[in-house]
């Protein structure tokens, strides 16, 4: 059971951003995709979810062997893919709880029972140390950066996807919030789920230890390794990788 990206080329209206990315995430694994600003990290995340602003010009996205390259975002979600957004949209007039119920029911034949939903929501809110009053607020309306990120992870915990992409979930979080969010993610790790954690910084990787690390620069993965690669990056910075890759002629 895998999420597989094969030779992915992606462009926006202006230019090509990803120039052939290959990546395989198996269930049970946690991957970190790291890269400096403008390297194409968010483009990859958005393309995985089918954001219409990005066009795949070459390559494929496979989930458990099924080609999702042209699928609508809702089909991908129902197939088991999830993304925690870096900048989630505001949904006025829809409370956190109602939105969550709608999302859960979208993937089900029978709507979830009110009691079951309530219990699950309570459990996950406790896990993420979210105040009860939070669920009656309109989703992301007037939320602080940290609240938005927690709402994203709360959805992850409720929806229990097979593969989750976390797009810069750590940015804008203070250390306490980062720890809580990381604990939430760790609680969800297991044999039946794969994670792709996209980040600029190594901070979150101190809490959520990745099995594999990939470094994306200028739309291509230039280095891959185990969690020690993140430590190396922490010490030496992206310049080091750039120089090294430049020297090898990539």
């Amino acid at each position, binding site marked *: 059971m895998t999420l597989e990206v094969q030779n992915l080329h992606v462009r926006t*209206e202006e230019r090509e951003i990803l120039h052939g990315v290959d990546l395989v995430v198996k269930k049970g694994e946690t991957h970190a995709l790291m890269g400096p600003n403008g390297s194409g990290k968010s483009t990859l995340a958005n393309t995985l*979810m*089918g*954001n*219409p*602003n990005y066009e795949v010009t070459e390559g494929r996205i496979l989930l458990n062997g099924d080609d999702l390259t042209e699928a*609508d*975002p*809702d089909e*991908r*979600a*129902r197939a088991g893919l*999830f*993304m925690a*957004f870096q900048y*989630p*949209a*505001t*949904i*006025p*007039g*829809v409370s956190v709880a109602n*939105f969550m119920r*709608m*999302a859960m029911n*979208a*993937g089900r034949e029978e709507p979830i029972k009110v009691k079951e939903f309530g219990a699950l929501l309570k459990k996950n809110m406790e896990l993420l140390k979210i105040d009860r009053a939070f669920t009656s607020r*309109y989703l992301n309306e007037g939320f602080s950066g940290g609240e938005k990120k927690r709402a994203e992870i709360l*959805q992850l915990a409720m*929806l229990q996807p097979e593969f989750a992409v976390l797009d810069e979930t750590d940015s804008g979080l203070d250390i306490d919030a980062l720890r809580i969010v990381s604990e939430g993610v760790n609680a969800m790790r297991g044999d039946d789920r794969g994670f792709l954690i996209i980040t600029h910084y190594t901070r979150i990787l101190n809490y959520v230890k990745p099995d594999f690390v990939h470094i994306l620069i200028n739309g291509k993965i230039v280095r891959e390794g185990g969690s020690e690669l993140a430590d190396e990056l922490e010490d030496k910075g992206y310049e080091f990788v750039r120089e090294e890759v430049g020297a090898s002629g990539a």
Partner: protein
Amino acid sequence: MAPEAIPAHSARPSAPDLVEDRRRAALEVYESEDVPTWRRSGFWTTSLRGLDLDVLEPKRYEPGLPQLDLGDDEHSALIVQRGASVVHTDLNDDQIVVMPLEQAVEEHADLVAEHFGRRLPHDESKFAAGTAAFWTGGVFIHVPKNARVEKPIQVVWLIDEPNTAQWAHTLVVVGEHAEVRIREFFLGGDFEGQALHSGAFELYADTGAQVDLAHYQDWGSADVYDLSTRRVEVGRDARVKWVPIHLGGHLTKQTLDIITAEPGSDMRHTGMYFTERDEHLDLFTTDKHEAGHTTGDTVWKGALTGESRASYEGLIHIVPKAPEVDTYLQTHQMLLSPKAKGDAIPSLIVEVDNVKASHGGTVGELDPEQIFYMMTRGISRAEAVRVLVEGYFEEVVMRLDDPGLEQLVRRRISEKLARAEDQVREFIGERAEAS
């Protein structure tokens, strides 16, 4: 019933005479004026070319309660006018008076003489004159001083046959410190052909009164022309919350004014419209402050599908000698179809210093990022659109503060969206590709 007290020095003509004099004067105006066309800079024109006045007639009906969906079954009073006739009156609260205006002219002559037409000049326009000249049946509501009415008063104007002319007048007098909820419905059957509702509504809220007023218009798919003027006067320290809901009408041309007339008066004016097919909606609202130390808050939201046209103009007008006013007007409009066209124009006339008055307006489309976000949660595009549009209107709907009516409005919004699903999808698709 005790005879009404007659003021000792009353030189006023009696109510029946007053009404008859007004009819005669108005008829002259109606007959001398041409059928108007309203033009504004830009693309906007509201024309009555399609309306054939010659075939219209005031249709009379025998008493009987037609089948109606009003959201709530509970009411303190229900009065129904079908075509030109009041066909049903049901009163469950002995504090209040709810009866045909024709009857009130005789039975509540003083109140009628004092208020009838006070804020509705008969010579304002051809159709205002027509209404003043030809009105039949009509509705009179009196909520006496200190009365507290629990259940809403429901008024229904029904047109369910082609070629109907309905000349409508509603007069509402709310006494000092009285509290009441009033819902006025404008409903049409889905018949073929045209009809006219030419309406006048006036409400006077006396000192300290608390009025919760809603207008619910859903003329259905027939070619109903609605040409109406509604005015609400808010007295000293009184408060009126007014929620007009426009859910349908072939052509609607309305003037909705709320006047804070004395110090301490407060108004909350929150309206919505949703146009579809080839409907044409032209609304002009005024938040008029005639006294200082008055407050206002106006919010209007609209959505357009099909080839419909909708124009909303909202004016804040603060007259001289009205300082310390605090008021705000905002208007939003959402296009959901490539062939719909509309505008939303807030404006301001302030003739005095030392007030707080501001306005804002947006005309926009659904945000593709919001739709994408919802779809990444497994929600279909159609469902995402429905939720976003309902969420957009929710701010207005919840101000109804009336679960039954709120449900009715939500259901109608959802039905309209379902009918427009294909064009909305196409529109969003085009936008996403163009972006």
